[in-house]
């Protein structure tokens, strides 16, 4: 009896010691901190669901997301790097990656990319902006691009075929004239002209369609922005601006969307996130929303601005890198990626062919509703480009130019200072040369 009591006591003590054992004696939990700039609550919630599901499958990896605004992303990230409190993973767009890379905190992700390329068909347009200096610096997760949106009922009221959006610049201007002339809408198209990313994006989509997508020449210090096609694009842009509602100088993303929803304008060249606003604000039949490719000149090419949003790796810790690789691999599973992308249906587009076919992507109620538009977005994204990332080798000087929103500023020069397209583009090119000096 005494022996039994002694055995039970020893066993209990042993169990107690094990329970209190330091973490290193048990399976180690690796913590990953992930920063991103997708603030809307819906996106944060969806990301958390995906991370929770990941952590269920991989209980030894803990993922914590932190949200920041795009406005503070650069300063906060650089400050964190300096303070040695950088996140392990950081979402970003290509020029953001170029800038953060200067801190030398961004780690190459070649092995992750090669692993994923071996398993999935990744769209080259999503990878290309992240490949330079012989390495990949970010793994693409989702893309974004423009479409030309319009209301079918407006077309009908103006005696136009609601299933035939304008395909060319001439057709667009003609459609605007017709609809305004018929009194169906007061204005043609919402044009954001503020010195902002929204202004730059609108402008660049037009530049791409007119084969004026290159800012840099073959040499990294060569600016070729001031060329005849760029000038022609700005001339066309000015014609669009003349049909736009007043106040465009302070407009960013939301105003052109609301102008279309409120039937002020006939058209909008807008990112796919518009579908969410359409749902919330329009409260009308989904069938009334039409979308076409961004119109191009007769001798132009299909195109749009395209943002490949990727995830950077900032940690050098081996265990964290392995854990990050596991997380990214998990996110790339087609059904996971499909679900992940619908953090903002219509805005976030697949980066692999497999994810583009995933049931989890197409079964989302909103994606189902607007499937015809989202298919068009995915189709258009194949022709997407991003300024500064159009050459085989990425030009690191883009970081110095992108932050100044020079594409929008050139437009402002025409509207505020009354410069001709030629002089305004010349001014813009000089500013770019100054920036990279």
């Amino acid at each position, binding site marked *: 009896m005494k022996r039994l009591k002694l055995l039970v006591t020893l066993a209990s003590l042993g169990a107690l010691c094990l329970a209190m054992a330091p973490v290193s004696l048990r399976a180690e939990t690796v913590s990953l901190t992930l920063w991103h700039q997708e603030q809307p609550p819906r996106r944060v919630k969806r990301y958390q669901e995906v991370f929770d599901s990941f952590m269920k499958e991989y209980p030894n990896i803990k993922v914590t997301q932190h949200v920041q605004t795009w406005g503070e992303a650069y300063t906060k990230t*650089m400050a964190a790097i*300096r303070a040695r409190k950088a996140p392990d993973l950081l979402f970003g767009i290509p020029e953001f990656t170029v800038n953060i890379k*200067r801190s030398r905190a961004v780690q190459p992700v070649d092995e992750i990319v090669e692993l994923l390329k071996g398993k999935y068909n990744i769209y080259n347009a999503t990878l290309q902006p992240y490949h330079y200096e012989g390495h990949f610096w970010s793994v693409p997760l989702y893309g974004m691009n423009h479409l030309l949106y319009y209301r079918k009922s407006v077309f009908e009221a103006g005696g136009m075929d609601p299933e035939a959006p304008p395909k060319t610049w001439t057709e667009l201007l003609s459609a605007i004239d017709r609809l305004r002339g018929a009194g169906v809408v007061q204005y043609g198209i919402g044009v954001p002209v503020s010195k902002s990313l929204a202004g730059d994006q609108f402008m660049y989509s037009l530049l791409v369609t007119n084969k004026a997508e290159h800012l840099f020449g073959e040499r990294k210090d060569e600016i070729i922005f001031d060329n005849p096609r760029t000038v022609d694009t700005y001339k066309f842009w000015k014609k669009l601006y003349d049909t736009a509602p007043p106040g465009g100088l302070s*407009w960013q993303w939301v105003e052109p969307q609301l102008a279309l929803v409120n039937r002020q304008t006939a058209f909008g060249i807008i990112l796919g996130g518009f579908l969410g606003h359409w749902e919330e604000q329009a409260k009308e039949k989904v069938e009334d929303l039409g979308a076409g490719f961004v119109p191009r000149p007769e001798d132009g090419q299909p195109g749009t601005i395209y943002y490949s949003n990727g995830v950077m790796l900032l940690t050098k810790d081996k265990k964290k890198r392995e854990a990050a690789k596991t997380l990214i691999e998990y996110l790339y599973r087609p059904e996971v990626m499909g679900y992940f992308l619908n953090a903002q249906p219509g805005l976030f587009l697949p980066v692999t062919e497999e994810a583009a076919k995933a049931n989890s992507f197409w079964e989302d109620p909103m994606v189902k509703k607007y499937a015809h538009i989202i298919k068009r977005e995915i189709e258009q994204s194949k022709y997407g480009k991003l300024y500064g990332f159009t050459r085989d080798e990425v030009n690191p000087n883009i970081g110095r130019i992108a932050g100044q929103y020079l594409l929008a500023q050139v437009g402002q020069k025409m509207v*505020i200072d009354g410069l001709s397209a030629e002089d305004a583009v010349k001014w813009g090119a000089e500013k770019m040369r100054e920036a990279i000096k």
Partner: protein
Amino acid sequence: MIDKVKTKIQQDPLFGYLLIAPIFIWIAVTLFYPLLRAIYDSFMNIEFMGEEGNFVGFHNYVRLIHDSEFRGSFIRTLIWTGVNVFFQVFVAFFASVILDLEFKGKRFMRIWILLPWIIPVIVLATIWRWMLDPSLGIVNYVLRVTATISSPIPFLGSTDYAMITAILVNTWRWFPFYAVMILAALQIIPTELYEAAKIDGASFFQQFQHITLPSIMPVLVTVILICSLWAANVFDMLWLLTMGGPGTSTQTFPIYIYQKGFQEYKLSQAAAAAVFMFLFLLIYGTIYLRNVTMETE
């Protein structure tokens, strides 16, 4: 308790220094270090945050002088500050005089007037942006419906209107704070002075000129100084309303510094501009305090 502490400090000065040490350390870390760091960075050629850069002497300051955008933002800062001070002090004074009167609902008004100051700037700026939108905003709607205007005014989207619009919005935000300060000064003026003046036959304006104004002058002097320094430093409201646009029409110094440092990635040039602004405001504050407060005394 306070007397005990006072006695202790008199007996042992070191104890007094220990008591104020935490706040001095705080000021040193949050004020002096960033200031000294900015001065240091202004003599370097740092572009991106985190880089070390090389010493370039006064190169950045010379560049500033030749930068037309810098000169333009300096002029705009003077205009922005001057007009803000004028409007804010005028409206605050007017509001405080009204709130000093006896009327029903005075207590409610004294609290309600603080609303613009309490609401976070981001909320205020967003509300005003929408209210002032030429197509969707209520301000243009009311003006058109009342036939005051025939076509919408792009208040924040026009170089003609953006600055004055931003000034008025900023005035609306800040005048309650100054109104409360002036009101406090008005309330301690002895009523017997007004009664005696009335008996002597003084008119309202004479009472204002010879009793009210001299009594609150010390507070007004302080309000004008604080108002001008704070107005010169406004970044949040301007950034949220216009981001310095359209073009550069509302680009004041703080906006210029931010854009230079964090959009054009020329951190050292931004630091030089910040040091210039610091020195300018320091000289202004010193001259103001010496001359204006001497006159007040």
